[in-house]
């Protein structure tokens, strides 16, 4: 039944898809095709454009150009209704189920039969039972969703699609919320589906799952497809390189430098996320004077929690933060500033800056007390001259202190934030995702400044999801996965492949800290 030997049999294909979001080209002439009876993995880092592509296929986003073909026929997809009619179904990472409703109520919701004056729930339940049996997806139609475990809820999502006669099932990060056992039974279900002629696309960045379940892999990076391979002819190393190894266009000039004494030490840091799960599981790290310690990792493995924990912006459940031999675990942000610990947050527009205020008001964020007159008024003339210095030194454009920060480009906004923190003359800086979304020119400026700070003897903790950046800037690299440090290596000794495997949780270096 599986016929992926003939390329002409593509059941669903997308050709030259272009999708432009303000400031970001999410999909750049992307070609993608799925054959019937195959499990196709769509691999890529966060922000590579894979979710956007799938949302275009499912009709949630329009496209700027390109066409979608179903069984070789060009089709209009203007909304999810069209996609469902064409047999396309999608399961999002967050399930779209009404928790108080029963399984069958959820399944028929939004379908024509649920809008009739009298709903034939029993008829629907009977059809659902037949489907469950046919595909081996056990679920009682009358169970209430909120009483069901996550794995069964996912099964209900699949049944929902099958009930709508979906031929292509798109699953966005399907295993993110599952236990290993639930993952194993999901894979059994997926195999059953393709054996009956359905097609499955799983969107993921987990390599071992791809190798285990998929027939083919399409790899995306920066909005483009960089490869499409048969899984059996590929290897974990090759996939890791395709996913993260971009051709290096940027090089940071950096002289070797002997690190000084330890400045910032993290001891057994533990943090729980909003749901009560362990976000950080005993992090031990040391950053020295004149050193950049890079934290590599796929987004969402505890990086932002790490920064939040160091800066005491997030409740710590265990461990200590030691700065210059002093315990600052419970120190307030103001105290951090006074002691010389600065922070450049990842979220430039919502944490690092106030987009509704002008540059000069942003320039003093975190240190406004230094710019207050004895009468308690903001000292406008000093703020103005300080802002001008900042603008000049870091080349912020436009160079007017009264310009609204929210209207600055990402690069200029980042220069403003980084510049503000640097002008404080701190002893250590925690920098999170410093160049996310920036263009090449801005990246260069930011990189140069980070290296200048290192050369000036500052201890720098650089958290970045961009491997290229980590490799270019760091003296040492620590890899974070699932709230744990998988190992710390000297950059000179590290290979992209090895780091990639550690990022995917496939490899762990014993010993941790190499001091």
């Amino acid at each position, binding site marked *: 039944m599986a016929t992926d030997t003939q390329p002409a049999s593509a059941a669903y294909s997308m050709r030259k898809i272009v999708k*432009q979001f*303000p*400031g*970001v*080209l999410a999909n*750049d002439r992307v070609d993608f095709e799925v054959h019937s009876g195959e499990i196709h993995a769509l691999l890529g880092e966060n922000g590579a454009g894979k979710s956007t592509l799938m949302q275009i296929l499912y009709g949630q986003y329009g496209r700027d150009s390109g066409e979608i073909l179903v069984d070789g026929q060009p089709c209009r997809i203007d909304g999810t209704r069209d996609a469902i009619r064409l047999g396309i179904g999608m399961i999002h990472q967050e399930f779209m189920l009404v928790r108080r409703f029963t399984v069958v109520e959820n399944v028929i919701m939004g379908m024509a039969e649920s809008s009739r004056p009298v709903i034939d729930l029993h008829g629907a339940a009977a059809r659902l039972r037949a489907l469950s049996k046919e595909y081996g997806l056990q679920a009682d139609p009358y169970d209430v969703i909120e009483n069901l475990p996550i794995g069964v809820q996912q099964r209900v999502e699949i049944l929902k699609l099958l009930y709508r006669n979906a031929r292509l099932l798109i699953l966005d990060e399907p295993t993110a919320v599952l236990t290993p056992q639930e993952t194993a039974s999901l894979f059994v279900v997926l195999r059953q589906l393709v054996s009956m002629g359905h097609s499955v696309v799983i969107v993921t960045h987990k390599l071992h799952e791809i190798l285990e379940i998929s027939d083919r892999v399409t790899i995306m990076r*920066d909005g483009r497809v960089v490869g499409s391979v048969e899984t059996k002819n590929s290897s974990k190393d090759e996939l890791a390189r395709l996913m993260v190894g971009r051709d290096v266009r940027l090089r940071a000039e950096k002289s070797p430098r002997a690190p000084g004494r330890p400045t910032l030490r993290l001891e057994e840091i533990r943090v729980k996320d909003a749901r009560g799960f362990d976000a950080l599981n005993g992090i031990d790290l040391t950053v020295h004077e004149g050193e950049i310690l890079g934290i590599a990792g796929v987004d969402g493995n505890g990086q932002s929690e790490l920064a939040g924990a160091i*800066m005491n*912006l997030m409740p710590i459940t265990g461990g200590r933060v030691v700065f210059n031999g002093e315990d600052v675990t419970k120190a*307030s*942000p*103001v105290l*951090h*500033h006074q002691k010389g610990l600065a*922070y450049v*947050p990842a*979220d430039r527009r*919502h*944490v*690092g*800056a*106030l987009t*509704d*205020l002008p540059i000069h*008001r942003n320039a003093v*964020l*975190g240190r*406004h*007390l230094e710019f*207050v007159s004895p009468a*308690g*008024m*903001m000292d*406008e003339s000093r703020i103005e001259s300080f802002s001008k210095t900042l603008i000049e030194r870091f080349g912020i454009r436009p160079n007017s202190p009264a310009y609204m920060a*929210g*209207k600055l480009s990402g690069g200029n906004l980042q220069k403003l934030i980084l510049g503000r923190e640097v002008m404080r003359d701190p002893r250590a800086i925690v920098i999170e995702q410093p160049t996310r979304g*920036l*263009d*090449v020119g801005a*990246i260069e400026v930011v990189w140069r400044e980070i290296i200048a700070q290192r050369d000036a003897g500052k201890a720098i903790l650089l958290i970045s999801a961009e491997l290229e950046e980590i490799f270019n800037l760091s003296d040492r690299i620590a890899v974070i996965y699932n709230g744990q440090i998988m190992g710390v290596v000297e950059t000179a000794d590290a290979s992209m492949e090895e780091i990639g495997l550690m990022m995917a949780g496939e490899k762990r270096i014993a010993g941790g800290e190499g001091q």
Partner: protein
Amino acid sequence: MKILILERRLVPSDSALAIAVTTALSVLAALLIGGLLMIPFGANPFQAYYQLFEAGFATWRGFGFTLVKAAPLIMVGLATICAWRTGFAYLGFEGCLLIGAAAATWTAMQALPGGFLEDVPFFAFLPVVLMVSMCAGAIWSGIVGLLKSRFGGNEVITSLMMNYIAVFVVQYLVSGPLRAPGDLPQSPRLPQETWLPYLFDGSRAHLGIVIALIASFVVWVLLLKSRIGYELIVTGLNPKAARYGGINVGSRQLLAAFLAGGLAAVAGMVDILGIHHRLVDGLAEGTGFIGIVVALLGGLNPLGCVLAALLYAGLSVGADAMQRQAGLPASVIFIVQSLIILFVLASDLMRYYRVRSRATVVMNTKVESR
């Protein structure tokens, strides 16, 4: 061929001109619809509007009434600005106004024969009554602020509930502790020395408008020029950024609550000492809510709030006159007032578009590389 097209902007145009034009268009649109509503009454809309504006703004007497009505609206508007720009979604201004009115009444009653403020000259009495009212209002709103900053209580719900309590507190006071002998549940008439003096002959305008204008200036300086104001605004714009910037978000919200309560209480004081001269049941008449609308209409800016309050008060005064002279129901003007608010608030949407005439559409194919 040239065509006019409506093009969506990525960011709204926020130039002063754009805001002025959209606001003016909103007011015009509301007046236009109001004019249509007048036609079934056989009235000439132009004449009716002329009478309306003449009564509200162009006669000395009418303008006096406008100022009297505007003063408490400005105070509640300022209170709204302080609370809301700090991200404290307070809705209890009506209650603060009542508590402020009760406190002012009690203070002024101390100037009755035998009271401890008897024979105190007005210039000394005024600061005392201001302080007492503001403290009473600040404590009243501070309860809500404390519940919010300490326990995360939802200030929308608690402040609305506190309004009801304030209404009943006033009812209690006028039927018991502060009741004057007689049939009506009301306090005794306050001694004339405690009344806010009238500003001009032949006009009802009293000192309240001066207090409101001074308060506007103070709030403007406090919010936009002082360190406290910076911290309040940063807290309101984004608590995360505030925390990152070392600002104590909880204490700033509590401060905003105190400011809001204190300012709204002055509205009550102004009405008691300027108009009613005694505490009566049902004196707030929704001023605590209309003031919120006025603040929003003024773009949560102290200066804008003054203009919006004058406009709103003038329309209300004019509506009464128009009802008498043109035989039109005042409800037409209340509809116009509501429409003005609705349109001005909705007109933000217009700033997201621009009108352009062009013949060809050029695709923007600039690729952002990393």
